[in-house]
């Protein structure tokens, strides 16, 4: 637990857990969280566990390869569409 007045408390650090892991904090807040973790074994354990879950899930859900002929089939449909003529902007732009 933090006792220094300029350091974050466990609660303050925990509120920033997600943003810290995802590097969404401003540099000053990143530094304060890091300083808290340096002196708080319990928060370090919790932060490491959350990061481990995220990395583990990432590792398991990201292994899908497209069928080898998908791009060729798309190219074929684009060729057909091209022969029909272009259209104006649409979609997600």
């Amino acid at each position, binding site marked *: 637990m933090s006792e220094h007045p300029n350091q974050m408390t466990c609660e303050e650090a925990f509120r920033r857990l997600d943003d810290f892991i995802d590097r969404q904090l401003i540099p000053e807040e990143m530094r304060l969280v890091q300083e808290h973790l340096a002196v708080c074994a319990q928060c370090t354990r919790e932060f490491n566990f*959350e990061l481990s879950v995220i990395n583990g899930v990432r590792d398991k859900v990201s292994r899908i390869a497209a069928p080898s002929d998908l791009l060729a089939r798309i190219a074929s449909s684009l060729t057909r569409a091209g022969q029909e003529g272009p*259209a104006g902007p649409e979609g997600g732009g």
Partner: protein
Amino acid sequence: MAALQEADGCVEPAVLPLETTVPPDPRAVSETSRDTAGFETLLSAVVNAAYGYAFRLAHNRSDAEDLVQEAALLAFRGFGSFEPGSNFKGWFFKILTNCYRSKYRRERRRPTVDFDDTPDLYLYARSGEVGFPTDGPDPAAALLDTLGTERVVAALEQLPDEYRIVSTLYFMQDFSYEEIAHTLDCPVGTVRSRLHRGRKILQKALWQAAEEAGVIHARSADL
């Protein structure tokens, strides 16, 4: 796992009608050819990621292929609005997400996990209770590896759509908050809150999957 079983036994993909709302322009052939090559180059760099994302959204190969093809066609037709040098992947994923939403708008999936009361650090707390590691260089690996890829994927797929889409982009594509916000056309704050909640729901779903698979019981018995 249901989604992969479906994938293995998928039916022939439905043929999507090509949209031909704009009449052919004879002058367009050469211009279109040039655009087609450029478009295909950009698409080829993201097609695997796009298919993986579509597969996680649609749950089977056939629908995933349809989604990517439909999105590719729409993107190609709107290629003029793509700003050269900007993020093609984000732009294409936005179109792909919109295709998914419009196609599956009516298919409201009922969540199988009651997530309203999920506390923070759910997996950490429950793991500690039954003797799974909560410390060390990669503490969650023991639980996740025991669960296996199929159950982890199934847990992610149980999330309600609003959390599942954000979480899929986050976990699978490694998108930043800003990229997710751009892809889904929503504020970064919305991404942040949905991701936070999505993670909590996912942790509960993972634990539920471990219980159903007998992983927890076996671990407790070993203690």
